[in-house]
């Protein structure tokens, strides 16, 4: 009887596990098969290396994804540049410096930040961050890559802080005691012992934050100006891959080259995120081995 129950439970868990894999493969297959027809008319070289994207051109449609690739990387890396030091700093403060009461109040508040809808953050980008940027840099308007990066940093912060703090907390107390007993200061213990020991967890936190940033659509759509030209810097308007898909998929006639090309963009984005996850996984395992 117990044996049967065990086996049924075992089976249910197996199906659950497989379901995720099947869904993932299904999405990948759909993207690949819908993207392939695009390359009957677009040369892959043009798609990957041309800097001109204009499928509804008056003259001749152009399908080059370089500007949106660059845009996506600019806002994502810009966001991480802001969010990593802030995030790890806050996590270290919460786990090692703050007293119990501060931590109990601050952590839930940080986690609430994750629940703010992206459209609200995008709106803040238009009415608050945009005018601020234009004033500081003396620009005519603030809808640019920097604006997007700041907003995405805000969105990635709760993930990075919360998970990094958990990682720092899970470092065995013995490490800290040993370090302090050897005469290290609190600061030295935190920076040279605890953070390195928690690094795998922190990297995982940063990667998850990056995952949130790279796929975010509404916020960047609203705050970056969405000019499809090749960006010339962080103070220039950018249009990410996600924005392009969101803007154009709504009006594109089904089963046209343009339609398939948008799936090609989606496939490229999928491959990038897959690659990011894989690399972070490899780093994690390497670090775990080193720790042992």
């Amino acid at each position, binding site marked *: 009887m117990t044996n049967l129950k065990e086996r049924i439970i075992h089976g249910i868990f197996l199906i659950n596990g497989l379901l995720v894999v099947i869904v993932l493969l299904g999405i990948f297959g759909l993207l690949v098969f819908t993207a392939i027809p695009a390359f009957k008319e677009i040369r892959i070289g043009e798609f990957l290396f041309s800097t*001109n994207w*204009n499928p*509804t*051109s*008056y*003259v001749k449609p152009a399908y080059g994804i370089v500007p949106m690739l660059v845009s996506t990387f600019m806002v994502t890396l810009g966001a991480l540049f802001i969010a990593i030091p802030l995030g790890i700093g806050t996590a270290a403060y919460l786990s090692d410096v703050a007293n119990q009461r501060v931590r109990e109040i601050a952590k839930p508040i940080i986690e609430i930040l994750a629940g703010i809808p992206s459209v609200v953050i995008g709106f803040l980008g*238009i009415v608050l961050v945009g*005018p601020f940027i*234009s004033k500081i840099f003396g620009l*005519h*308007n603030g*809808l640019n890559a920097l604006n997007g990066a700041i907003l995405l940093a805000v969105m990635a912060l709760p993930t990075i802080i919360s998970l990094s703090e958990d990682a720092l907390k899970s470092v065995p107390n013995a490490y800290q005691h040993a370090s302090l007993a050897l005469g290290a200061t609190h600061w030295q213990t935190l920076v040279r012992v605890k953070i390195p020991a928690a690094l795998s967890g922190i990297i995982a936190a940063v990667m998850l934050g990056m995952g949130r940033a790279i796929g975010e659509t509404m916020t960047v*759509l*609203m705050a970056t*100006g*969405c*000019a*499809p*030209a*090749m960006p010339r810097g962080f103070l220039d*308007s950018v*249009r990410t891959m996600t924005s392009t898909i969101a*803007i*154009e998929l*709504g*009006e*594109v*006639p*089904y089963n046209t080259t343009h339609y398939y090309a948008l799936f090609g963009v989606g496939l490229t984005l999928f491959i990038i995120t897959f690659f990011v996850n894989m690399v972070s996984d490899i780093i994690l395992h390497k670090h775990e081995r080193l720790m042992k």
Partner: protein
Amino acid sequence: MKKYIRNLALLVSVLSFAVTNVFAQEMIQVKGSDTLINLVQRLSESYMEENPGKFIAVTGGGSGTGIAALINGKCDIANASRLMKDKEIAQAQDGGINPKRIVVAIDGLCVITNLKNRISKLTVDEVGKIFRGEITNWKELGGDDVSITLYGRQSNSGTYEFLKDMVLKGDYSSRMRRMNGNAQIVEAVKQDISGIGYVGVGYVKEEKGLTVLNIASQAGSEYSSPLNLNDVKTGKYPITRPLNQYINGTPKGDARDFILFELSEQGQKIVEEEGFFSLPDEYREFNNKALGI
């Protein structure tokens, strides 16, 4: 137990009655142009006030989105600030949908700049050059030495397509910022000294914080303003356009009733209150033909 079953049966019958009642109500789905959305929303509200029990849902998304929805059978009426393309009509007919066009209002497409900009008039040719990215500094037009920032719509917008086909006759500069809607362009240009944008007249009639440029059809001809009723109606203002609704086949039933309301004197009064222009006779005749009157 018996009582329990009886109560349950009662509950189910009440619920099913409520459900069928909701579904029995004919809901007219209207979708599309961002330029038209405020106007059609108001028209539908007045219509529903006068005809209790009728329901109309108006949503935006851009002309391209509305037309795509009509082609895919996902809406009853598509709002469009441009004409349907031959390709789209062919696609609709392939799916057994026969789009009929009704003109509900006339729009003077406004080119707007910041109040601090000294330029107050342009020719159609200059507007084209600016948005194609060939003129990039206001000083080339006699203004201050400030580089031009372009604000336009995204490609699902009928206004985007209309200006591209009728004025630019070429591609927009890839540096043009693609905004989400008319209101966002108005906001951006109000704050940006270097900005220029284009929006439907309904969005600027009450707006004091920006300049609506006077436009001439060519160098040497007279400049006129889209805020001037007569100039738009007679076509002296060069960038006027009809605002359309597309519907599958000759309108019937509730949808026809609603369209007749839009075209009635009362409906056309709302059109003018919203800042657009009521229909001249030629379009009234055109509509009568489409309605089979």
